[in-house]
């Protein structure tokens, strides 16, 4: 051939190269998942009422447990399936495709509480809680954020004093989903206020039926009562409920992060892709907001949809990329903030576009296209919750790109 190759002339074997294909075993797994979901996915609509929704979510979790699908990402010794990230990806893709209901009340237990216990809990804590979580018997909620500690979580102030073999907790948490119907809470409290703010935090399991707890629902801009404030008035929690060591809660909370190695975005990405399909179909059937013909025939509408289409594809590719990273690194890097930022901004653009398309139905949530109003309002949570877009940009700049940290922040 006459060419001098800089490498040894051979390309890497197919098996260790960038790849988009699934193995035979994975394809069979997909078939298995798909047929199980086709048989067992609940047909009825998930109730909107809290108690009924809890019962629904619990029952669906039990169904999954009995089908052998509970705790996909949990290690087998913890009662889970111990599936690889790719198998999780396949599960989530099929789950989304089947239109299966979101985990709802089960979410925190399966994705936060359980994984934290697996990583940092003692034998007794695991033995008690993990089976109940997998079977859908116990609902968990999160108690991290406070009115004064949002983006700046480490400055939380809810105080816990050790009295005998108990922690006595006084303070307030906010943005707690499912609080009114939860059994347990993963609670971060301040047990030492003398040192740096990240030190002196303790991670503890709080029984939500303990005396002294008051739950106040918060109405959102989307008119629902998803979030709550939780007030603690000398709530007594056994020291046995502390996970990890007292004052080591910041590290315990970080442990949860290692659990999710790129899979968290899959349901969001699936949902956005489905919504964009809907929006495309809608644009093709609805009159243009100005001029004649359908909305789809308006170049500005159509090119905005096409732009979103390209970006939703890219979001999927980024999700695959995140899983590829997750297969290499056990602890997720700061790159996760990139996908989250991209998703949040994209989701908002898609919802804004939807409002420009539904046009005549803009005023009325009950109208044929009125559900887009709620989606538009709801989409703000993606640029606010779990770290605002601003915080994510800081993380990307400082931890991915290595730009100097702001002095005052540490």
């Amino acid at each position, binding site marked *: 051939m006459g060419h001098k190759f800089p490498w040894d002339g051979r390309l890497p074997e197919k098996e260790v190269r960038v790849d988009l294909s699934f193995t035979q075993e994975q394809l069979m797994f997909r078939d298995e998942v798909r047929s199980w979901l086709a048989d067992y996915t609940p047909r009825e609509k998930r109730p909107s009422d809290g108690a009924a929704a809890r019962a629904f979510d619990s029952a669906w979790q039990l169904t999954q447990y009995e089908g052998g699908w509970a705790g996909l990402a949990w290690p087998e010794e913890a009662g889970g399936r111990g599936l690889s990230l790719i198998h999780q990806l396949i599960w989530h893709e099929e789950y989304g495709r089947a239109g299966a209901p979101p985990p709802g009340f089960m979410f925190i237990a399966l994705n936060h509480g359980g994984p934290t216990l697996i990583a940092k809990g003692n034998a007794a804590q695991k033995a008690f809680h993990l089976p109940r979580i997998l079977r859908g018997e116990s609902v968990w909620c999160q108690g991290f954020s406070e009115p004064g500690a949002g983006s700046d979580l480490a400055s939380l102030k809810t105080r816990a004093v050790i009295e005998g073999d108990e922690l006595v907790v006084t303070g307030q948490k906010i943005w707690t989903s499912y609080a009114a119907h939860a059994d347990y809470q993963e609670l971060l409290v301040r047990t030492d206020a003398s040192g740096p703010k990240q030190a002196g935090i303790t991670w503890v399991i709080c029984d939500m039926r303990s005396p002294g707890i008051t739950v106040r629902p*918060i109405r959102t801009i989307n008119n629902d009562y998803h979030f709550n404030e939780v007030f603690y008035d000398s709530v007594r929690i056994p020291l046995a409920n502390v996970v990890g060591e007292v004052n080591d809660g910041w590290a315990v909370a970080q442990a949860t992060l290692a659990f999710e190695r790129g899979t968290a975005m899959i349901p969001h990405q699936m949902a956005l892709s489905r919504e964009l399909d809907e929006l495309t179909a809608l644009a093709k059937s609805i009159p243009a907001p100005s001029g004649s013909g359908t909305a789809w025939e308006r170049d500005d509408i159509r090119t905005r949809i096409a732009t979103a289409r390209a970006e939703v594809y890219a979001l999927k590719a980024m999700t695959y990329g995140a899983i590829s990273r997750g297969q290499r690194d056990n602890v997720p890097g700061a790159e996760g903030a990139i996908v989250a930022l991209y998703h949040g901004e994209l989701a908002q653009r898609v919802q804004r576009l939807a409002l420009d398309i539904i046009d005549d139905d803009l005023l009325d949530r009950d109208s044929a296209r009125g559900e887009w109003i709620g989606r538009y309002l709801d989409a703000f949570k993606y640029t606010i919750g779990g770290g605002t877009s601003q915080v994510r940009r800081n993380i990307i700049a400082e931890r991915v790109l290595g730009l100097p940290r702001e002095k005052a922040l540490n």
Partner: protein
Amino acid sequence: MVDLLPSDEQNAIQQELVNFLSLEMPVDRLHQGDVTDGIDALIELGWLGLALPEQAGGAGAGLADEAQAFRAFGEALVSPAAFATVLAAHLSVGLGDEGRARAILEGDARVGLAVPAAKAGECYLIAAQQADLLLMVDKGCLALIPAPDVVDRVACDPLDGTVDLQRAVLGSGGPVGEGLAEAEYDRFLVLLAAYQLGVAEAALRTAVEYSKLREQFGRPIGAFQSIKHLCADARMRTEAAQFQTIYAGLASQDGHEDARAQALSALIVAEEAAILNAEAAIQIHGGMGFTDECTAHLFLKRARLMSRLGGGRACLLDKLAALS
């Protein structure tokens, strides 16, 4: 002589209105389920007749002055019924029916809004529970129709929960009077722009106040450039909307050749300012911004509601393009 800033005297009048609204109709009233539209009080004090001719019971001011009042209405999220009332009075005068204008301005004939719904023959009624007349708005066409001509009213679940919304069927009756409504279209655009400008300013004010108070990482969040720059861009949008709206109001009252283009431009920039500033206010409020308790979302929903009156951005841009 060219001067786009109000005189001290004008400022004093405007300040009276702002004071009245902040005392009697603070935005927080909407959180307390206060559903009165305040039309009686505004009529009583003469604010709705500001630019109507004196023979119709008004004060004879110009559109630019009227726009300043609507700016204050927007800041206070005054009911869209005020918008309907003023426009209906002007339309009546235009139709030569000063008696009707006087009845409207004296509160004897109440006015609500109507916009077409997706389904032909149906419409949405906005703030029209007690209306005797409806101002029908359809992408640039304005008409007055008697309220009884609209039937089969059904309550809806509104985007903006602080304004009553009904779906209804248009009867066979035609509009009150004939033609002429087009002549009031500039006024319609400018007053709508002024209202949206007020919404944009109030949303920004809320965001700025919160940025000064809310602390994270040991300092007010307003000390962070990201928040500063969101606020600065919002401030820039209100500046553009403010002067363009005043300019358009004056161009229209002075009969400039490009008055229509100026008025369309005012609404285009003001509507964008209202929506983007309110979105930014939600973002800047963080978690609080996502709650009903914060006012930010009220501005967003009202801005979106009012944007429906202008026919939507694409419609406005097409109209402006047609003049180029």
